[in-house]
């Protein structure tokens, strides 16, 4: 089982869109796949039209394995399941801090899933907290979407600094540019600058109004608009990432 966290300190950079699209492609090409929605806003759950059961909450999530298993729901797409988030996840950090070895909690809680899934995606909330650290420990790849702007670059640097300061394995981090608008010079310059930087994937995701419309379709782009430029870009991104994973 390979675990991929969609993570960024910054919000609105396309974490959920990437998690939804890549998990769909993963289920299509290398099934079976699970997407864990860790964001209390529940955007990826929303994209898949899934609501958590009334009895499911952060407490159950922290109990792990069996409780997680029984709350996983099938999406409308073959071999792709989702563990929905609940609004109670907003307190996940506080609850996590009360646990023993909180940083290893997520990894331990998902152990049993390795029999069922080949890929697990985490759609993470935008912050840098104890939950994020637990995600870092549980993930094989920390995939960071970035808009090619100075602020995004700054948050990326903050993340790598944090890894260095806390002696974490920064070789897990993979960054890529999203919402790329080629007509903007700054976008072009930043991409050029980081093209060959270590840990950066070469494939970029163009700004595409269809990505924004995913909220209307409530489905992955490759399922509804496979010919859109963004859908093609996600396919290439997944290809690049899996090649990268094979070499890891």
């Amino acid at each position, binding site marked *: 089982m390979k675990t991929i966290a969609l993570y960024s300190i910054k919000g609105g950079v396309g974490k959920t869109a990437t998690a939804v699209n890549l998990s769909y492609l993963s289920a299509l090409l290398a099934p079976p796949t699970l997407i864990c929605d860790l964001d209390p806003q529940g955007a990826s759950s929303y994209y898949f*039209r*899934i609501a958590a*059961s009334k009895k499911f909450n952060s407490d159950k999530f922290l109990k792990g394995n069996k409780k997680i298993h029984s709350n996983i*729901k*099938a*999406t*409308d797409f*073959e*071999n*792709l399941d989702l563990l929905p988030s609940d609004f109670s996840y907003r307190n996940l950090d506080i609850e996590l801090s009360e646990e023993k070895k909180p940083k290893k909690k997520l990894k331990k809680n998902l152990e049993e899933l390795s029999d069922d899934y080949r890929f697990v995606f985490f759609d993470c909330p935008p912050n840098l907290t104890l939950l994020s650290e637990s995600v870092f420990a549980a993930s094989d790849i920390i995939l960071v979407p970035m808009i090619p702007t100075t602020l995004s670059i700054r948050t990326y640097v903050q993340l790598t600094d944090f890894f260095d300061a806390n002696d974490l394995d920064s070789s897990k981090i993979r960054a890529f540019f999203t919402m790329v608008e080629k007509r903007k010079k700054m976008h072009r310059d930043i991409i050029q600058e980081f093209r060959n930087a270590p840990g950066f994937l070469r494939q970029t995701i163009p700004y595409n109004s269809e990505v924004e419309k995913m909220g209307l379709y409530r489905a992955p782009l490759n399922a509804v608009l496979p010919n859109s430029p963004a859908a093609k870009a996600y396919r290439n991104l997944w290809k690049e990432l899996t090649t990268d994973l094979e070499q890891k």
Partner: protein
Amino acid sequence: MSALLQPIFFKINPDTSSELVLNNLLASVCKVAYLSTKKDRLTFYDTFEWQAYENGFVVYKKKNHLILADLHSRNEACSTAFQRLPFSFFPKYLPGCTMREQLCSFTDVRGFFRLCTVEEHIRSYRIMDDNDKTIGILSLTSLSIADRKKENPLTQYFSIRPLKGYQKEIFDIEKVFASYEELGRVLDFKELFLSIMKAVDHNVLGYSTKIDLNLDADAPIYTSAQRLLQFTLSVMRQNEAGIRKNIDSEFLHDFRVAIRRTRSVIKQLKGVFDPDETTRYLDFFKELGKLTNELRDLDVYLLRRETYYDYLPLFLQPPLPLFFNDIEASHRLLHKKFCRFLGSSSYTTFITEWNHVIKRELLPDADKAPNAALSTKTVAVDSIKKAWRKVIRHGRHVSKETTDSELHALRIDCKKLRYLLEFFSSIFPQNTIIPVIKQLKELQENLGDFVDFAVQVEFLHKRLEVLSSGGEKSLLAASMGGLMATLFQKQEEARRKFHRTFRLFDHDETSQLFHDLLTSNSAT
């Protein structure tokens, strides 16, 4: 969308329109949207003894895959690529996979053969919640037997498979279905499978060689013997098709056992039949048995293929394919010859006549068959007693050297006793007959091993004598030498074990068991 959870099946009454169920009933409880229509052809396989079914599975080929599915839910347990559509196959020759392991765990000797092909016409619908999220798949399936398209579909049913995480929601819909008894009823896939098999005249689990006749202890022995003979003939007849199609070696084996049992009934129940009439039939059955001896021997060698490889060191194994190719060629020839005989008028006429004889209810003349009117119990007790005493007497006379002929003869005595116990098992209390059979079985196993090894050594010796010398043949001769040495050692091991095994049988405890059996009041 993983739909591998427990589904429900709702069989629609023949006079109910599926559209009615779909439009009125379902629409009132949930939202459905058309998903797809597809056609599939399923070819079902099982062994003659329904070993997949008995283990709770169905085996079928769909598209280019062989699938093992749960009998009750039809959920797939495993599958493997399967391009061809053979009439029969042995699981051990499937490529290494879970499927092979599973099927081999059901049987290591029986072949799986084609039962029938059905066509499925499936219209699927998504069942959705208020968010238009799919929570289950509803399929309307119309099943027909392939190549009988002109007939109406065999059956029509809905199946509902919940998606993971939506069992509860689907369960509520299932309850609505279950309440509409006038439109159809809820059932599981096993029942659908049985109705398919019934439509193609397959009697599921309808075959057994176990004598389970519930004989009447007070009925004239002639009547009981006729029932036993009817049973053995039916076993023979049921195995003929399988022998012809060469599905597996068990068909011939069961056929031969039925012949031996037939002869045993006639010969061991003295004074029950008119000898003027039965002699001719006995001779025929004897010849029929002989006709299959060699073919059965070859079957056994082919079954022991792996064991022979195991007996030899690696460097003596390479010539073995030559040996087995030779056996296979002889087998093909003999099989063809025997099948020709099975189809001959002399065989069919004989069987028709015999069938007529064993259905005769009128008892034969008392002067020709003086014991025919005796009660079943009297004759059973008497003949078992005699056969048991014979085994004890002959066993005690086996010399210290335990010669081949002594052991061969004792084996036949034991077999006769065993047959009698099996014939009349239903008139004795089960708690007295089972331990007796168990004791006898151990002795039979020892003698069976001895004779088997002896026969194999002799067979190999004969083959060796006709081998020409030089080249590959010399290597084969070395391998056969190795095999004979191993088999001979095993034969001698069995011989050495004999006296100890017989002592355990010829013991007060066994004697008491036989005494209890023969003095017990019949249970039925």
